[in-house]
């Protein structure tokens, strides 16, 4: 049966949203409050809009090369050597993010849910499950993102809505009183929370309706923008900026406050953690997909499935390497820097591709 293949419009939104929402969701309010104080909500909003602008550039760039991924068209724009260097950076970055996410997830899970389970066990089972999914191809990745999107949105919205009545608007009385500096540093900090839309670099060859990439891709950023801003608003509104900055997982704190039906569902935080496993899983599979397909294209090959299983041990080693929280934070910072550089690189690449007349309609199809 020859039916139209490729990702549907809603799947684009789902993939982008789910690869953004992941590990950082638990600590988004802490990051916002630490850097920007009570301006955190504004910072989260404005960073989301900026990220959407970058994503729009990314989609424009992808539309110029509808049959290529970033690994291939970067070589065309930047030349062979620089393009390959960029590709190598990209591979390193995606592997790093996968490793950091797995490690951060395992740490959080052991702290919140399974105090006696060895961390290696949690990480290995998660990685095996992810490689099983990624081996099914981008359509599997897209569909699983699609199917897990509604529960993730519902639960996060529930956390926000059930707590919004307790927000003390009095805490927002001195908003914008600290000048521009905390806002700028806040944007730098929060922008990493929106990372994940790099997947747009890879979507243009596999999407069914290529002209619909722009609205649905941007919708994929709008959803985390609303959810993140809601979480930050509620967290700071309830606990205040300085207290929120000291809580490791403010979102869990919010979920813990909820009790449904009297005390029948008093451990809402556990339900929240269980659904958070879903969003972690979707983030990991997206990055694992990106890592394996980047390596394959960098080597000039077509079939990426063997590379998944070659990357898994490497990723596991990166994930297990940091001994303590300080080391982990170093790795996270490193991956954040590379990530920001990789994402922002789409702007000069678009300019260069226009200047050098690469891509576009004439050699697009």
């Amino acid at each position, binding site marked *: 049966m020859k*039916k139209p293949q490729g990702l549907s419009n809603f799947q684009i939104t789902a993939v982008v949203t789910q690869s953004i929402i992941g590990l950082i969701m638990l600590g988004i309010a802490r990051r916002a409050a630490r850097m920007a104080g009570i301006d955190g909500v504004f910072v989260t909003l404005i960073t989301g809009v900026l990220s959407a602008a970058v994503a729009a550039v990314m989609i424009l760039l992808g539309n110029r090369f509808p049959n290529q991924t970033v690994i291939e068209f970067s070589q065309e724009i930047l030349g062979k050597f620089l393009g390959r260097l960029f590709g190598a950076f990209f591979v390193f970055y995606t592997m790093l993010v996968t490793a950091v996410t797995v490690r951060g997830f395992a740490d959080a899970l052991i702290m919140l*849910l399974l105090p006696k*389970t060895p961390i290696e*066990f949690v990480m290995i089972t998660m990685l095996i499950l992810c490689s099983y999914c990624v081996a099914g191809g981008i359509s*599997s990745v897209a*569909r*699983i993102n*699609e199917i897990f999107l509604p529960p993730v949105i519902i639960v996060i919205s529930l956390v926000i809505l059930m707590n919004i009545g307790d927000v003390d608007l009095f805490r927002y009385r001195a908003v914008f009183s600290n000048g521009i500096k905390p806002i700028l540093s806040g944007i730098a900090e929060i922008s990493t929370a929106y990372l994940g839309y790099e997947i747009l670099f890879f979507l243009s060859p596999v999407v069914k309706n290529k002209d619909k990439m722009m609205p649905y891709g941007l919708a994929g950023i709008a959803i985390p923008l609303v959810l993140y801003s809601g979480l930050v608003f509620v967290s700071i509104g309830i606990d205040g900026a300085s207290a929120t900055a000291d809580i490791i997982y403010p979102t869990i704190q919010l979920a813990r406050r909820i009790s449904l039906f009297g005390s029948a569902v008093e451990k809402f935080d556990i339900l929240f953690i269980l659904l958070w496993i*879903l969003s972690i899983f979707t983030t990991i599979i997206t990055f694992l997909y990106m890592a394996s397909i980047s390596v394959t294209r960098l080597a000039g090959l077509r079939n990426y499935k063997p590379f998944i299983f070659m990357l898994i041990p490497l990723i596991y080693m990166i994930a297990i390497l940091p001994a303590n929280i300080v080391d982990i934070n170093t790795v996270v910072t490193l991956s954040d820097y590379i990530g920001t550089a990789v994402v922002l690189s789409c702007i000069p690449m678009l300019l260069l591709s226009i200047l050098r007349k690469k891509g576009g309609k004439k050699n697009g199809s």
Partner: protein
Amino acid sequence: MALWENQMKIRKRNKNPKNRKSMEERQSYTSRSEDRVSLTLSRDGNENLEKFKAFLEESSDAVFRQFELGTSGISCALVYIDGLVDNVVIQQMIMRPMMIELSKLEKTGITIGKENAYNFVENNVIPVGEVQEADTLDKAMRFVMSGEVVLILDGYDKVLIINARGWPDRGISDPDTEGVIRGAKEGFTETLRTNTALLRRKCKDPNMVIRTIQLGRRSKTDVAYVYIKGITDPDLITELEERLSKIDIDQIFSSGHLEQLIEDSSNSPLPQMQATERPDKTVANLMEGRIAILTDNSPFALLIPATFAQFFQSPEDYSERWITSSFIRTLRWIASFLAVFTPAVYIALVSFHSGLIPIRLALSIAATRSGVPFPSIVEAIIMETTIELLRESGARLPKPIGQTIGIVGGLIIGEAAVNAGLTSPTMVIVVSLTAIASFVIPTYSAAIGLRTMRFPLMLLAGTMGLYGVMLGFIAINIHLISMKSFGMSYMTPQSPLILQDLKDFIIRGPAKKMKKRPVQSYAIDMVRMDMDERENHEETTGIE
């Protein structure tokens, strides 16, 4: 040792030339008749009859009846299988006209010779609706074996095939596995022709096509596929025909066997085609653009393509009000979750996260578990295995004994196991809840597939707690989304998301709003209903 000696004896005897003749005789029993007789028919009637005899002589149910055509002296013969034919038809509609009435006719001056006998018999003598002809032996043989009567006329190298089928039939009865409270009470039977007639009675559209092919080298099972021209996607029909043509097997055992020969992913506990006993459900699915596959000797139709959501639908949903149906359908989805996850979640909560249970409940569970010597995972596996044993024994036994097993197993063993300290009352509740929930799912094969999944889930819960349950949940989802049924994603309309089909998914939308056929069945003609004018007027003006 004795066996080996015996074999040597047989070998020696076969080598002995004195026994050669008996060997040849034995060969006539073992070698196929096709290899001994040429398959072309000759003009000699007796020779043709001998060829039929070479095939069937050894079978006691084959009947060879020789007689003369009227008074003309042309010899004829009937070949049929006793038991597959209607004797009244043979006596009154074939032999009587040919022997008695024809001789009366000949007295009026009509002459019948070898030159016109065949056409005269076919056109003027035999008052039977369905008459065909066969010019080779194997084609004629196939008709004989499916209950038709072969008429051999001397002087012709072809034979007449007369339909006189009639065999014992179970009769149409209440579908056992898919009962409904409000709806038709008739189910398919084992006879293909009865089943196609049931479909025709429900849909009088001449565009409903029933194509029949024979599958199985030896069993020659009739397999019919039914679709409606103009609704069903031609690509789907081609795909099905391709898959059916690839089958090369000696026997098609049942429709479930056929299903496994043409399905997409064999390594799945879940069915990828919907099997149904109900003609009304079959026709409703034909109307949505699906194809039904009917297998002779099997009271089940297979519907393709199928999606996971379909297994939670019952024909009754469409007979009742949409609000109540939606409520019941939601209940079924909840039941499917309970059937798969309840024991796993219970194990995880009791052995890993006892802090998550509300404190009073935790205390009472702990109190009931205090006398139980096993960890909860062992207890759960014992009890779940027991209930599967009870279910399986109840299903195989005659109905009255099956009920006894239910009472003995459910009430007495349950009570005694708790009293003996083998299990806790909470575990009994969990296990019975699982069992009851799994019976809520209307499709048996989907229910049993889901029930199987709970055992690996229990092991995951026993090793990793709720995280393990979640891993299992994700793994099940990966499996579901990666499956396809004839190219259609198994989780449609959830993934890929088809908004239009969500109105008949967990909720069943109002009948008046179901104006389009579902996308998920590849229908090429989407319009199901065209009656919205008046309603819109009322909605916009508010005037009744």
